[in-house]
């Protein structure tokens, strides 16, 4: 019966799974609906309106190659760095680990286009770095490397936040066992720890790779030609939206291919359960270890946080001293906070049944459900916005230009974030735990609330925090879907940088950073580390 090969010599829980209750499926389908609306609307629009090819195939192939290259590079680097930072801040006795963990995570709150702008503003012969430090000419990094840098700055916190709960729950006795069997420290990490982290790594890799594919702000500012640029160009240059939507459907197909390829590579996710007698040792760092850790974290935080914030502050002070005004960013901040929090809670709640179906169900439909959650995430946000505008105008007119539709858009685009963290958390919970609750007289529903959800809570909270932060800076879809007069921080940043008012852009970005940092710090401190 237990003949499957497993990384650990534990009985394969897959064998123990029983079919999950129908109502899980019903709830999951309900939760999936917002994600499917843009996807189906888009495919429907292209099918009924006709696909319109506007860009030569050779050019598309070139753009696609560029996009995939960037996605691979950003994913690889951010996973490597993110694993390192999460390890150092959870598994060693490095003084100030928690503070560093927050600092590593903070850049997440900056929109990628702001990071790109500050990179541009930092370099150059008259850039902020030159001005502050008197260097003759600090180079401006653009193109592939600039985009790689800006998006990695965004992606590292993503990987870090995802890996911290996983790494802090790892059983170090396994690591010790491997070392006792003669593996080097690196060997033990590679052969034991890394495979155990595979589901976590897989989840963050997909998030990062597909985000990179969908990003427009950073790559366009840093002048790297990707597929999204072609889509935006067709939107900007035409009243007819079909050419752009056709390209969007192509990009969606590519994203689905990436999801499927990733699943093939990942094969079966390893389960690490609450083994009895689990031990968690903290690794002692010697002086050299500390030096290296501080140096690495220092460089990372300088690039991802210190430089951007310095540039923003420089812009604000430069502008203020020449008489510019800040405007009422606080009202915008309150609006951003409202819709983003709503989206975060919705995404966390909706992720519960979807994660249960993905992790616990044995049928062949479960992987399809997982793939479907990704479709809207991988789309450039403007296409999600347009699809929802079309949907609302033609089918749900009362919801057109309401905040509800904005929240639906966030839910559609960012759902895989919470589904990822929630299923990761669920994989760590042995189905036996739920069975135990059942045999102790609790109904399936009561078990959900008393056992499943509390145990998934850290994952849901981490995922919700990520959705919150991502939603805080969302621009293109918000722009299209919001009610008249509903300005958010991201919209303010966009509106001001587009017209060249860097002062107000700087101020709004700083407020965005501050407002987002508070919940982020709370989550990082209170829940990821206890």
């Amino acid at each position, binding site marked *: 019966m237990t003949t499957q090969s497993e990384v650990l010599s534990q009985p394969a829980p897959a064998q123990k799974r029983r079919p999950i209750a129908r109502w899980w499926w019903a709830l999951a389908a309900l939760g999936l609906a917002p994600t499917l609306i843009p996807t189906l609307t888009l495919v429907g629009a292209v099918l009924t309106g006709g696909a319109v090819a506007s860009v*030569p195939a050779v*050019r598309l192939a070139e753009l696609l190659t560029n996009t995939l290259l960037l996605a691979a590079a950003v994913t690889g680097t951010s996973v490597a760095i993110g694993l390192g930072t999460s390890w150092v801040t959870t598994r060693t006795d490095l003084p100030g680990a928690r503070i560093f963990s927050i600092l590593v995570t903070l850049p997440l709150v900056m929109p990628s286009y702001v990071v790109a702008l500050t990179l*541009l*503003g930092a370099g*150059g*012969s*008259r850039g902020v770095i030159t001005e502050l430090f008197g260097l003759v*000419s600090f180079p*401006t990094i*653009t193109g592939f490397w600039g985009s790689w840098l800006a998006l990695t700055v965004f992606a590292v916190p993503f990987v870090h936040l995802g890996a911290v709960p996983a790494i802090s729950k790892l059983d170090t006795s396994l690591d010790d066992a491997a070392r006792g069997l003669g593996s080097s420290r690196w060997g033990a990490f590679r052969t034991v720890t890394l495979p155990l982290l595979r589901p976590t790594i897989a989840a963050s890799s997909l998030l990062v790779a597909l985000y990179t594919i969908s990003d427009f702000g950073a790559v*366009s*500012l840093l*002048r790297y*030609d990707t597929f999204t*640029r072609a889509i935006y*160009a*067709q*939107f*900007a*240059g*035409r*009243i007819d939206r079909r050419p752009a939507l056709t390209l969007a459907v192509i990009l969606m197909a590519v994203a689905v291919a990436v999801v499927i390829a990733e699943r093939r590579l990942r094969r079966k996710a390893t389960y690490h359960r609450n083994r009895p007698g689990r031990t968690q040792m903290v690794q002692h760092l010697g002086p050299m270890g500390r030096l290296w850790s501080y140096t690495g974290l220092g460089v990372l935080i300088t690039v991802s946080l210190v430089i951007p914030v310095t540039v923003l502050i420089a812009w604000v002070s*430069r502008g203020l*001293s*020449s008489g*510019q005004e800040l*405007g009422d960013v606080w009202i915008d901040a309150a*609006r951003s*906070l*409202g819709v983003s*929090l*709503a989206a975060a*809670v919705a995404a966390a709640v909706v992720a519960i049944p979807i994660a249960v179906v993905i992790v616990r169900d044995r049928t062949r439909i479960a992987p399809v459900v997982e793939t479907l959650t990704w479709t809207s995430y991988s789309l450039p946000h403007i296409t999600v916005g347009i699809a929802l505008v*079309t949907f609302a*105008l033609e089918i749900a007119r009362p919801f*057109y*230009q*309401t*905040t*509800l539709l904005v929240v639906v858009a966030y839910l559609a685009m960012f759902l895989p974030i919470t589904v990822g963290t929630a299923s990761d958390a669920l994989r760590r919970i042995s189905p036996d735990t739920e069975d135990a609750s059942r045999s102790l007289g609790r109904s399936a529903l009561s078990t959900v609330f008393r056992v499943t959800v*509390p145990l998934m*809570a*850290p994952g*849901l*909270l981490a995922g919700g925090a990520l959705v919150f932060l991502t939603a805080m800076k969302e621009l293109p879809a918000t*722009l*299209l879907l919001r*009610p*008249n*007069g509903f*300005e958010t921080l991201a919209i*303010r940043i966009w*509106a*001001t940088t*587009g*017209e*060249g*008012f860097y*002062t*107000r852009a700087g101020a709004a970005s700083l407020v965005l950073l501050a407002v987002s940092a508070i919940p982020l710090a709370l989550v990082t401190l209170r829940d990821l580390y206890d």
Partner: protein
Amino acid sequence: MPRKLSMLLVVTALVLSACGDSGSPADGSEEPTDASPLVVYSGRSEDLIGPLLDRFTDVTGIEVSVRYGGSTELATTLLQEGESTDADVFFAQDPASLGATAPLMTTLDDSILSLVPERFSDADGKWVGTSGRARVVIYDTGDVDDDELPESLEEIVDPRWGGRMGVAPTNGSFLAFVAAMIVEQGEEYTLDWLERLEANQPVDFPGNSPIVAAIDAGEVDLGLVNHYYLLRLQAEGSGEQTANHFPTGGDAASLVMPAGAAVLAGSDQLENAKAFVEFLLNDTTQEYFATETFEFPLVPGIEAAEDLPEIDEIDTPNINLSDLADQLERATDLVTEAGLL
């Protein structure tokens, strides 16, 4: 763990109450309930237009609810919304967006149209120009000598600018400039010109501001933009070594294009909408355009900002702006075909 749960519940409660607050702002819940506000779709940003709208409300007592966005995007939105739109006024950056939505618009009164020289408004009176924006060559005064500055389309694609020129091929004003070239010189010439531009390996930017910032940072030597970006940068205290050059060749490189406004035919408050358009053309507002957004006022008698030439001195090509909208799609086709997109 119960602590975490209760925290989650508190957060949920907070959010739900927040949602309750913002659940119905579509109908402008902040406004007094006795009259629905005038809905303006603005392709011009809040930083430029916000103060104007406040003043409009102060002066007229008419409440305004604005939707900001890209001009093309809002034009498409208007077309998609059709009859059911809530919009009363469309205030756009470029004649192409205004032209595309012209079928939805009411014809403006002569009293409004006559305030502005005929060449800056729609021939059929569907929209009126409100301020002017000129195409310029912006350059780094340290890297480009005054006497080698390009004066015409031909000189812009001179091989000497290879790798030194910043362009924003996805930007609306660049596309409008290409559309103007098509109207004036035909598709064949335009495609050839675009291919020569591409052969010069220009540096692609996503918009005008990044070009100006890149020149200010010393990254590229010159760029094709609208005139006012530099003035705004200088108002913020930067851009000392950067200057605008107004080409004198009289072709599309010297184009002056208006931003403009139109009134939706289906508006339920036509009078207020027209009052808004008139407001954009009164002396105070025209002065605001001159001094705050650094555009050219279009109402005769209002002075442009210092350092700018008189609008009549700019040798803009004589084309019918209403034709631009028809050529926008072709412009995008040709820019794509030339390999710039």
